[in-house]
């Protein structure tokens, strides 16, 4: 493979080099990819001139089909055709079967890591999502004419840690760099906010195929500050379909259990009828029954509205709670943005407009608005807009805590806390001489462990034996800008420090991902090595370039001559090493540069904080 080019320090960043980046809306029903081209964010088309990719993956004997080509197998081959995989990702089998009892798939794997048994073997939800992501990334690569620097992938704001982590794992599996996981409503706000230069408090009502999100944001001078977010990660257009399916079954005198082909047929008809009803007062339903007879029925909008009214009311209750959490009132909200295909339903629009007491905004296509917002963010994150004011300050949707004695949850970080965030809490031992402690990490608002989502369990061992209550165990929760959690624990009273990182109890661990990556490649070993080498070389180039730029900017102010020459020496070494193919040595050379520039990096960060404050006070005067 060709060696990466590395510029000389100081002349590193080519000023107008455009880095390719894309925003991906990985939806329950449909997925899209968008990018900023000559200043404008637009969705990218496939070879058939379509921008919407149905989120359907079909495992056929002669290959894996994605999107429209997979859709045709949804009815004829439901066991091997995965629809709405987003409802399965990052969830336990018990979760899935209780929420969606009529899914046509054959589940296998264990409780925590459910897989689907297809004719191409066991496939887990992360792999299915990776297929969709790969398809979209390939589309973007060909439309933009080059490898992507990275992508922004949107997730429902209400996704918990396991669902977010699994989405990121899917990207890893698809071989694409994730610049950021972005909350869908925030993405929509960006698409609208930048368009209208709006200032003030806005609400984003996002009702997609499988999830509902409500976010309340404050917009000021390019800053999108999420005040509160809420919703339901298992409520969406699919539930409207299901309500309609139940109605149709009763009308057609059909009773469950039905064959999976029949289930899919009824579902498809319900879905089509729902879409028709958004524009027409009534819709016709045709079913081919098992005995070969035809069933023809009609449904009118009033009946449909009656079926879904309770579901909409449920979303409005979430709205009320989030408005309260945000510390604002309905009258403070100056704009309501509608996102997601389900907001096309007339009753949804009218109920929401009535609740917020204003006409909801639908000027950007609700199917595309999330992808467009993600593309704008991706463009900024890739570094194409160094002077951009855009900044997104997002929050965690659900509280994070630990199990304490008696099966209770002690909250460490409460919901709607702005990320990134790091919080530590101290705990102590329960028994004399206790040398280990079980740490159980939970997510949710309820007080009892059983009512919250279990995220991870790990043990802190090697606590020196002491009397009960004497040990000081400091547990630190860190949530990064993607909303992903890492937890570490440490015993500090004795001076003995031991810490450990979380292992996810849901989804996949690192080894699983590496194994799947290997499996997915034909010449496994060479490909893996090549990929790892490339990753290290890219990181080396990045470090070299950044340190060079930093020296050019601040070297004379913040470094002594000795420090400067030490840094330059380590950079020389990095440059030489990165041209070899020895992964471990490159890694070591990067570490060395990191170590030797650590103090410099801190000084630069502190200096930039001072500059920001100074500039800020000047503005105030």
């Amino acid at each position, binding site marked *: 493979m060709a060696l990466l080019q590395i510029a000389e320090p100081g002349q590193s960043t080519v000023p107008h080099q455009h880095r390719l980046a894309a925003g991906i809306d990985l939806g329950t029903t449909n997925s899209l990819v968008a990018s900023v081209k000559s200043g404008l964010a637009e969705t990218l088309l496939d070879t058939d001139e379509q921008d919407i990719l149905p989120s359907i993956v079909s495992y056929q004997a002669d290959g894996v089909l994605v999107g429209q080509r997979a859709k045709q197998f949804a009815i004829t081959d439901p066991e091997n055709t995965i629809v709405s995989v987003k409802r399965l990702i990052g969830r336990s089998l018990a979760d899935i079967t209780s929420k969606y009892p009529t899914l046509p798939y054959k589940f296998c794997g264990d409780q925590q890591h459910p897989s689907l048994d297809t004719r191409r073997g066991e496939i887990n939800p992360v792999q299915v999502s990776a297929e969709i992501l790969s398809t979209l990334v390939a589309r973007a690569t060909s439309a933009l004419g080059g490898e992507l620097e990275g992508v922004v992938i949107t997730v429902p704001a209400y996704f918990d840690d396991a669902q977010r982590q699994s989405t990121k794992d899917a990207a890893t599996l698809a071989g694409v760099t994730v610049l950021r996981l972005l909350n869908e409503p925030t993405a929509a706000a960006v698409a609208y906010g930048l368009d209208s230069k709006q200032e003030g408090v806005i609400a984003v009502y996002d009702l997609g195929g499988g999830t509902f999100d409500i976010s309340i944001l404050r917009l000021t001078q390019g800053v999108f500050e999420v005040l509160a977010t809420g919703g339901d990660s298992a409520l969406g257009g699919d539930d409207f379909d299901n309500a309609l399916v139940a109605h149709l079954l009763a009308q057609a005198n059909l009773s469950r259990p039905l064959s999976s082909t029949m289930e899919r047929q009824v579902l498809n008809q319900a879905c089509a009828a729902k879409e028709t009803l958004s524009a027409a007062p009534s819709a016709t339903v045709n079913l081919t029954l098992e005995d070969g007879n035809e069933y023809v029925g009609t449904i009118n909008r009033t009946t449909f509205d009656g079926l879904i009214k309770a579901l909409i009311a449920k979303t409005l209750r979430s709205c009320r709670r989030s408005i309260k959490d945000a510390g604002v009132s309905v009258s403070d909200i100056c704009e309501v943005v509608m996102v997601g295909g389900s907001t096309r339903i007339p009753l949804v629009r009218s109920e929401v407009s009535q609740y917020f007491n204003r006409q909801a905004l639908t000027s950007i296509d609700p199917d595309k608005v999330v992808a467009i917002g993600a593309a704008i963010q991706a463009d900024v994150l890739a570094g194409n807009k160094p002077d951009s004011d855009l900044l997104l*300050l997002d929050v965690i949707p659900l509280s994070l805590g630990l199990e304490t004695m008696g099966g209770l949850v002690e909250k460490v970080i409460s919901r709607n806390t702005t990320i*990134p965030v790091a919080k530590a809490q101290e705990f102590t031992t329960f028994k004399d001489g206790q040398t280990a402690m079980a740490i159980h990490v939970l997510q949710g608002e309820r007080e009892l462990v059983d009512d919250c989502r279990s995220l991870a369990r790990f043990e802190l061992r090697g606590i020196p034996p002491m009397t009960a209550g004497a040990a000081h165990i400091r547990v630190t929760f860190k949530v990064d800008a993607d909303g992903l959690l890492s937890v570490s624990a440490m015993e500090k009273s004795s001076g003995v420090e031991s810490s450990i990182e979380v292992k996810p109890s849901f989804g996949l661990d690192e080894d699983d991902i590496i194994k799947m990556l290997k499996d997915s490649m034909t010449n496994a070993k060479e490909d893996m090595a090549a990929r790892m080498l490339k990753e290290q070389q890219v990181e080396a180039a990045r470090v070299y370039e950044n340190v060079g730029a930093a020296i050019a900017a601040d070297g004379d102010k913040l470094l002594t001559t000795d420090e400067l020459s030490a840094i330059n020496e380590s950079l020389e070494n990095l440059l030489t090493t990165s041209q070899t193919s020895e992964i471990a040595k490159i890694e070591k050379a990067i570490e060395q540069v990191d170590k030797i520039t650590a103090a410099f990096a801190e000084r630069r960060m502190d200096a930039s904080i001072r500059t920001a404050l100074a500039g800020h006070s000047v503005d105030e005067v």
Partner: protein
Amino acid sequence: MNYFELFGLEAEFSLDLNELSSAYQALQKTVHPDRFAHSSSQEQLLSVQKSAEINDAFNLLKQPITRGEYILKLRGTELASEQQTLQDVDFLMEQMELHEMLGDIKHASDVDAALFAAQETLDVQSQHLWQQFEQLLTDDNQQNNHKAAELLRKLKFYKKLQIELERIEDALFDD
């Protein structure tokens, strides 16, 4: 550097929330991880740490109870722990009555009016304590600071009542 200094503000209880908020945004525009998405992992790590620290500071200063607590801490007065019981018997009796008032809301003939009245009572009483608290802080001496710390502990009781009231309201609306 203390949290007030971090935002370039005087260590005063009655700070201008708009000023705090705009200083916060200016800082986040500089250090937020989104500004470092294409930087080295070292810079990304540093940015996450700084950004988290600024979020923490902002969160603490923007809420009156934690801001008051922080000012007292800067003055060398720590609040007694939650486990240590409050000695003021009259106050505790009042608190019990307030709890009963909240408990009675769902049985009221006019629930909305009862909610409104309860909110009014909590607001008036806690407002009164806040005024005393601010007054005490104007003169920085040990005796005043201890009294202020005691008031802050009482205000935490009101905070809990407020949360309870909101929970009751939620439950009424959700049915």
